[in-house]
């Protein structure tokens, strides 16, 4: 059974600081996704990582994937308040019925002024 873990689960940081969120998964997969969820809202896709060594960047966020270590990171550079949200990683698996997604528990990020 595929399990996806994230740490930290809660993160409070000051504006201007850097930090990394980690996503570990238990079985082989070459597709990993990062999502953002604002309070009371739905999920928004941030990054799709499709191969070992993949790196994607958008603004102050950068995601990377190491399939050998079964690890993805989401790095935050010079955080701003607008980045406050919950961030989920999700790993794709193939089942008898097609592609399924297993989500991590989420990292709730608060960026303080």
């Amino acid at each position, binding site marked *: 059974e595929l399990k996806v873990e994230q740490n930290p689960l809660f993160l409070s940081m000051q504006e201007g600081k850097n930090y990394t969120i980690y996503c570990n998964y238990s079985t082989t997969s070459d*597709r990993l*996704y990062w*999502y953002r969820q604002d309070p009371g*809202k*739905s*999920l*928004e*896709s941030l990054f*799709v990582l*499709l191969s070992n060594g993949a790196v994607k960047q958008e603004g102050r966020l950068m995601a990377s994937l190491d399939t050998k270590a079964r690890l993805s990171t989401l790095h935050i550079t010079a955080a701003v308040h607008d980045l406050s949200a919950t961030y*989920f990683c*999700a790993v*794709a698996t193939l*089942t008898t*019925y*097609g*592609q*399924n*997604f*297993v*989500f*991590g*528990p*989420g990292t*709730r990020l608060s960026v303080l002024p």
Partner: protein
Amino acid sequence: SQTIHQWPATLVQPVGSPLSLECTVEGTSNPNLYWYRQAAGRGLQLLFYSVGIGQISSEVPQNLSASRPQDRQFILSSKKLLLSDSGFYLCAWSVGGQPQHFGDGTRLSIL
């Protein structure tokens, strides 16, 4: 462009009442469709997913059921709601290796 519609946005139901939540997708064919539930402050729990009409995979045994009567329509139902069914219900679709696209969600409160 593809869009996903989910309704209602909010719902308050008494314990023991039935439930029907609907999700439709436009602008794509034969999508994979998913129902998730999210308890307050928690992660996503996959309830059902479907790769085609009439093909439903149930991930968690419970008093909920799902149906896919048309290619781009996914319905979540219950005959008798429990207090534990409260939560934020999200429908999503995906095609190929692309990320899932989520609807706006339904916030369900059981009284």
